[in-house]
């Protein structure tokens, strides 16, 4: 577990250094993810330790958003003053993005026969 955590941090660190050195607009951890992905392609897959540790970390990914979400307490006044545009934009635009992405992707992959014969679900 410690070895896997160290590996994840090393890739994050490499990502942060690259993002800053090349002044990229993309955050370090996203570059770290890309680097680790490339390493896995070259190596042929993660070891058992890395697979388990990442699995545990991703299982509770929701937890990691809680501290930032609690920041809502700072914006009580602005939200009270602009609740209508904020709430409508948040809900409708999220629904639209979900629907447009799913429908476009479904339409594009639906053109190819990909169900095995007999499966007409």
């Amino acid at each position, binding site marked *: 577990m410690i070895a896997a955590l160290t590996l994840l941090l090393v890739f994050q660190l490499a990502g942060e250094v690259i993002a800053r050195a090349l002044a990229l607009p993309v955050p370090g951890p996203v570059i770290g993810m890309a680097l680790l992905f490339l390493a896995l392609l070259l190596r042929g897959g993660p070891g058992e330790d890395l697979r388990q540790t990442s699995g545990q970390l991703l299982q509770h990914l*929701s937890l990691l958003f809680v501290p930032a979400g609690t920041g809502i307490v700072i914006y009580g006044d602005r939200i009270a003053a602009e609740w209508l545009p904020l709430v409508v934009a948040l809900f409708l635009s*999220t629904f639209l993005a979900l629907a447009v992405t799913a429908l476009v992707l479904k339409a594009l992959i639906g053109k190819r026969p990909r169900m095995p014969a007999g499966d007409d679900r």
Partner: protein
Amino acid sequence: MNPNLEEIWVYLSTSPLLGLTLTLLAYQAAFWVYKRCGFHPLANPVLISVAILASLLLATDTPYQTYFDGAQFVHFLLGPATVALAIPLHAQWPRLKAMAGPLTIALVAGSLTAALSAWGLGALLGGSRESLMSLAPKSVTTPIAMGVAERIGGLPSLTAVLVISTGIIGAVFARSIYRWLRIDDHAVRGFAIGIASHGIGTARAFQVSEQAGAFAALAMGLNGLLTALSLPWIMPWVERLFAR
């Protein structure tokens, strides 16, 4: 409060221990509720945890910064967790590669819809410029969204709150929308929730299936990349076009 209790409170309110412990306790409680509700999307664990913690902070008049001094240790793990997304991505790589063309088109369509509809709806309803620019990058992962908001004239910390809200809304309502639109392929479901609702949508997708999770992780990463590169030049252009 007797002097002894007050001493204890002074210690607790200045040490990071309380904020960290409360974050984990709130999440344990929220996850217990989520489980008891059969993982129903309405019982979203982020939503319940934030509701518990925000109520506590408001009730005890504790500044957010004091809380965050402890909670930052949890927040920090977002970095390594983002890197760890490479593992499910690698596991699903053959299927992802086979769908590269459709995924790219869906990515561009979904990414533009998310940013422009948020800006447009907010503008129609009279949102302030700062709020509109904080709304535009709301569908991408927190660190990218905050950076983009800063570049286009939004408020990064407000953006963080809007990003989390977007994630929760997507995680809560995606299943109903998919049922209504008759979308049942887990690859499509995962990809769409990753575009619209970044990491929180991805977290929800992983709770549904590993395939949905991997497609969500890919969508989140790609949308982050595309938004970071495109919004800083699209938004000034959109503003000029619709100058009020």
